[in-house]
């Protein structure tokens, strides 16, 4: 009658993989941030899918998803602010240049 859970999970996995690829391989910090956001959304999609198939009781997953969305928003705001701060300092958003944490 409807789409089985596996499809959602597959989609979510693809989304996560895309996000991961973006976060790992791109040099631009904003794109890395976007990749992380995609991984986030993959996770949220999972939660919502699980809820839909009643794998969790009541509204627990829903609440998780809403929290996650809110936190993702905050996180991206903070992340962007950091990127701007980094840009001001280094005049670049290339993550390879940011290595002052080197041991």
């Amino acid at each position, binding site marked *: 009658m409807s789409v089985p859970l596996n499809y959602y999970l597959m989609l979510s996995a693809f989304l996560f993989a895309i996000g991961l690829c973006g976060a*790992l391989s791109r040099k631009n910090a904003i794109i*890395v941030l976007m990749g992380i956001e995609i991984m986030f959304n993959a996770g949220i999609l999972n939660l919502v899918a699980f809820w839909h198939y009643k794998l969790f009781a009541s509204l627990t997953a829903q609440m998780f998803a809403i929290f996650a969305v809110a936190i993702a928003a905050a996180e991206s705001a903070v992340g962007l602010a950091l990127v701007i701060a980094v840009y001001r300092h280094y005049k670049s958003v290339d993550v390879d240049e940011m*290595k002052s*944490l080197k*041991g």
Partner: protein
Amino acid sequence: MDEHLYELAKQQWLIPFIPLVAAAIQSLLNRRQRKLSAALSIGALSISCVLALRAFAGTLGEHESARAISDFTWFTCGTTRLELGFILDPLTATMAAMVAFVGLMIFINATGYMAEDENFTRFFCFMSLFAAAMLGLVVANNLLFFFICWELVGLCSYLLIGFWYFKPSAAAAMKKAFITTRIGDIGFFIGILMLYWHGGTLNLYDGGHGALEQAGKLATITGWWGMSMAGTIALMLFFGAMGKSAQFPLHVWLPDAMEGPTPVSALIHAATMVAAGVFMVGRMFPLFTAAAGDWVMDFVMWIGCITAVFSATIAVAQWDIKRVLAYSTCSQLGFMVMALGAGGLVAGQFHLLTHAFFKALLFLGSGCVIIGTHHEQDMRKMGGLKKYMPITFWCYLIGMLALAGVPPFAGFFSKDEVLLETYHRSKWAWGLATFAAFLTAFYMTRQMFMVFAGKWRGREAEHGHGTGHGHHHEPHEVPWNMWLPIAVLSVFAIGLGFFGGKYAHYLGGEETGLAEGKGLVMGLSVAVGALGIVLGWVIYGRKTMEHATDPDPLQATIGGLFTVLNRKWYIDEIYEATIIRFTAICGTFFRLVDKAVVDGILHAVAWTFWAISQIVRWVGDEFLINGGFDAGCGGVRGSGRILARLQSGRVQNYFRVLSLGAAVLLLIYFFTS
């Protein structure tokens, strides 16, 4: 015991105390308070003099050997009390009266002699202190108290010899005086210790328990050097007297002490302090007589005899007016000591008294001469002073006759007694002493002619031709405050001799009773005195010196011997080459021992420890411990460096590794489940 005498004895402490208070006040005065200082000195000593005369008068009416004491406790040590005390007996009474009176005369004279000195105030402070110490010594009934005062008079002597401290010669003389007497004092000190040990007390008289009253007991104990303990102690005490009374071979300080102002020479180095040694032997005489079987008395007599002759020979060839008198003092002190050694307490003490008067007179007279000639002391540059200073001349003449032993002056009687006592003890000593008496007459005549006869050979005579201030250098008579004391003293120099018999009775309570040989001794003494005077006139008086640069007439007569005498038998040089050099070498030696041996060992020990520590450091610490530790540290650091490379600082790298790890974990999960 007489109550009155006892009351007087209880007040004996006032005699030294009043000048002491004066000295204490004077020490706080400043330089400008000259009159106050002199007034304090003279006033205090006048009071002491009155007290001493009162005490003297108190003893006069007494029966023989009247004696009163007054002791007090100084402090308690162990279970014994250390007592000090005062005594009043004939010996003390006469001595105290003499010291106070002669001292007073000298003080008055000093106001003139020191009139131009800037440290006038300080001078009288020292003089008062001296008077206090000397009077304290005289009234002491305790050998410790005696010794305390004995050292204090030594201190005052030191301070006053060096009164003109800026002169190197005075600075050297003061030190020499103190140290030479100190050497004798060590003997004295040991004597005191021995007496305290064996007698159990230092009180001289103590109602039968005093040290002197136990002399008989001490004579039964075996002492050192083949003598009884009494003899040993007496000998030790006599060493102190040798230092203080300038007996050979410790006489060397006295002539140098003439660096002090002349009143000091008169008071300390003629009348009182140098006589303290003789007084001490007199004071301790029961101890000496108890040791009659020992050789100590002979020793005392011969030391006195040698000093008398030896110093008299030196006095013959001196040019300094004060040095002649200084050696004469030495010689006369030798007479006194000789008399005591011969057993003649009365003779010795009587000669001490008469000598104090006429020698003080002579010294003050020489002081007048020095002032009158504007600080000239070389007799060759004097002459003809009879014309310029008549009063001084007459007084000096009296003193000279007294010293030369011309009858009926005081010195004749007392010296005669001395010779008589010696005659009975030893003919040899008597012969030598008579020779010394001859020399005495000779050198005094020499001095008289050189100073007072002929014409003035002083500075004015030599280069005073029309310089304009020629008359300024001309000798002049001294003011009254200088000649009055010597006039008073000359009265005593004339008259005192007649009291010899009374004095003997008063002091000893017995006549000397030596009649045998009296005529011979007296006749010979007068004869040699006359011979000396005549010889003096022959050499110096017939034809007086013309110029200060002329050779001494005596030099022509005895030639090289004169030089030896003039250089004082080279005693100072001998001491310089032996004892003094030896002491200095000892000092250097022990300094080097400290530097080289003691510190050397110390440094060797230190270096050893240092070397051990270096070995421990390099082999143990640096190589093994530090080396091992460093190696370990190097390993940790190297691995850290390698691992640190992982920390690239690129967040993406971490992320990649993280992802890889997660992927690997996932794969493992899949394949194992």
